[in-house]
């Protein structure tokens, strides 16, 4: 193999005077006609072009990752903030919701049960892109002195963001169901860093077998990369807010004064006998309830709860506490769920309502008749009950359960063992707080 590389090098116009691929000065002096190869040669300026591409792409990636990390960090104050969804001025319109959904999903950070909010994946991305920028800038500066082992390492390092981008892109599409444009920016620049690094690797012609320091340099590179990630992670862990507010959230925000269900209106939506007895106040056409349900499921926390639901449709058709409907059609869906109480259809109807939420809300804008028709078509078993005085009365009973407990007019609300999960703990702090509320605190 070494012989082959030697022959190739000689074909390129120079001989391998030493193991690092550089021609010896003596060789050059001996051959005054030696001319370095153009555009392909190791040590020539053109290799800087792809390295500069890697540098720019890595800086872009660092900018995207920093934007996302800053947004995430801002939410650690347990307050409501907007989420940056475009780094282009004026590009926010209509995008924020998807970005927020992605950021609040359990996939946006790691170690959520250990730290309120966890460590955002974008922090790791920031570390990796800063590291890639550093490596690319260093190699570009070295120019002709860069070894092929170094460009090879750079190429290998760019594989990590590509693999992570593919993985997270898939999760975003298949599990979260929302697109984050800042994340998409990261996916694109990840690809660009890889392409640039590949080009730099191809354009540098030093044979990797001929670099005795290659393995050492590769190892140093790995250590440097790990160092970037570790240092930034340590900084995060040192500075992450660990205040009383987070611990106060564990004891909940209020209690149920009348948790009993004399009217039989509580619905089984996730029974796990023996687990923490929990009640969720929800509206089947409330987007926040859908997102909360998704977070409970994706985080696996639903398995730790013996969950029942009390319906609280935010629809003025049946809810006298509203002057106008926030979620038209919710009364009809609630009636259907209460009609199906005791049957497996309850969860199925809720799932159907979540999946068709936007269409159902749109259909009910001028009255809930179309929603009732759709329910009857999808769930014929409840057709005979829907709209009857008994069904309507049960919705009233559900609403009055909230009155009896003097609950805020909002959804969703989760009560674990009678204690209300604070509103600010329903997204980023969900795993941290809920784990402790159900008794599994670490």
């Amino acid at each position, binding site marked *: 193999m070494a012989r082959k590389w030697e022959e190739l090098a000689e074909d390129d116009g120079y001989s391998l005077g030493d193991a690092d691929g550089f021609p010896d000065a003596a060789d050059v002096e001996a051959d005054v006609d030696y001319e370095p190869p153009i555009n392909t040669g190791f040590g020539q300026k053109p290799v800087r072009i792809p390295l500069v591409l890697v540098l720019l792409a890595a800086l872009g990636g660092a900018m995207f990752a920093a934007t996302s990390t800053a947004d995430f960090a801002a939410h650690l104050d347990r307050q409501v903030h907007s989420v940056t969804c475009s780094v282009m001025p004026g590009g926010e319109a209509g995008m924020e919701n998807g970005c927020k959904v992605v950021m609040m999903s359990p996939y946006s950070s790691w170690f959520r049960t250990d730290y309120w909010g966890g460590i955002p994946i974008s922090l790791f991305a920031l570390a990796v892109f800063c590291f890639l920028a550093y490596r690319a800038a260093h190699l570009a500066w070295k120019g002709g002195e860069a070894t092929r082992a170094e460009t090879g390492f750079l190429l290998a390092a760019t594989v990590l963001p590509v693999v992570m981008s593919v993985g997270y892109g898939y999760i975003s599409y298949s599990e979260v169901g929302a697109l984050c444009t800042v994340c998409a920016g990261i996916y694109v620049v990840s690809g660009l860093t890889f392409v640039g690094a590949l080009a730099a690797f191809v354009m540098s012609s030093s044979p990797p077998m001929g670099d005795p320091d290659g393995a050492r340099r590769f190892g140093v590179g790995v250590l440097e990369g790990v160092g970037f990630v570790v240092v930034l992670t340590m900084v995060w862990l040192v500075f992450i807010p660990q205040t009383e507010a987070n611990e106060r959230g564990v004891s909940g925000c209020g209690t149920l004064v009348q948790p009993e269900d004399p009217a039989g209106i509580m619905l089984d939506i996730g029974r796990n006998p023996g687990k923490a007895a929990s009640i969720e106040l929800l509206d089947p056409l409330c987007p926040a309830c859908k997102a909360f349900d998704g977070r409970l499921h994706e985080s696996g926390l639903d398995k730790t709860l013996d969950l029942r639901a009390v319906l609280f449709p935010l629809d003025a058709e049946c809810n006298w*506490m509203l002057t106008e409907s926030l979620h038209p059609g919710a009364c009809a869906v609630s009636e259907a769920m209460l009609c199906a109480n005791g049957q497996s259809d309850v969860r199925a109807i809720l799932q159907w309502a979540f999946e068709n939420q936007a269409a159902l809300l749109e259909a009910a804008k001028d009255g809930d008749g179309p929603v009732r028709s759709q329910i009857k078509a999808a769930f014929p078993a409840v057709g005979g009950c829907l709209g009857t005085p008994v069904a309507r009365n049960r919705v*009233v009973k559900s609403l009055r359960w909230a009155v009896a407990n003097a609950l805020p007019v909002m959804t969703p609300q989760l009560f674990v063992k009678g204690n209300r999960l604070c509103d600010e703990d329903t997204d980023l702090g969900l795993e941290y707080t809920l784990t402790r509320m159900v008794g599994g605190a670490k």
Partner: protein
Amino acid sequence: MNDIMRRAIVGVPALLVPLLMVSSWLGAAESRLNAADYTAEEEVAIASVSEDAYCTPKLKAIVRRVATACGLVGASGRGCQPAVAKNVAQLTDDEFNALFRPLEKRAHIVQFDADSVDLDPSGVRTVETAWAAQQGASFFFVVARASPDGKTEHNEKLSAGRARSVLGHLEQKFRDPDIAKQVGLLWLGEDFAQLGEEFCGWQRSRTEECTEKEINRSAFVAWIDCAI
């Protein structure tokens, strides 16, 4: 310049800049978190029973007296005798009926055959529809009457039977544990607060021609949206 220097010149800022940014973001979040006042009252509406505009102080006083006298508020029994109803109302016939006029859209009048306490199918539907429209109301009043035909004593029993028919159907149909706490019965017989013909224009269980006699062979049912 050797390679280590070049690495340092490029690498240190590459690490230091994000490090400072991250620590600054987290520090700012912690400052805001510590500055937040979690003892402040949340500006969120609280779920409550309804209180409609027609709930004048006078009506609320009547409702409270009737509800108490009829055993809905902390007392032992249910149902008010006509004399008691008169006493708790402390109003003339017209004043009593005037209080209920704002309930035109909320109330239903369940009509009965002469000398009968049985609900017919349309009466059943009307009672169920009225009950299902509770929303945020706290009390369901059943005010039964009789036309002045026959003896006063008989008509008193007749109106009491009509009120109990409505209650019995509600209990049998809805099996609602709140019925005992929410339904107030008044039977007025023929001697107090008879309805005038203008009530024929309200939501009735029957569509046939309506006279003053027929409108008083009835039970006036309505949810009262007053928080007592």
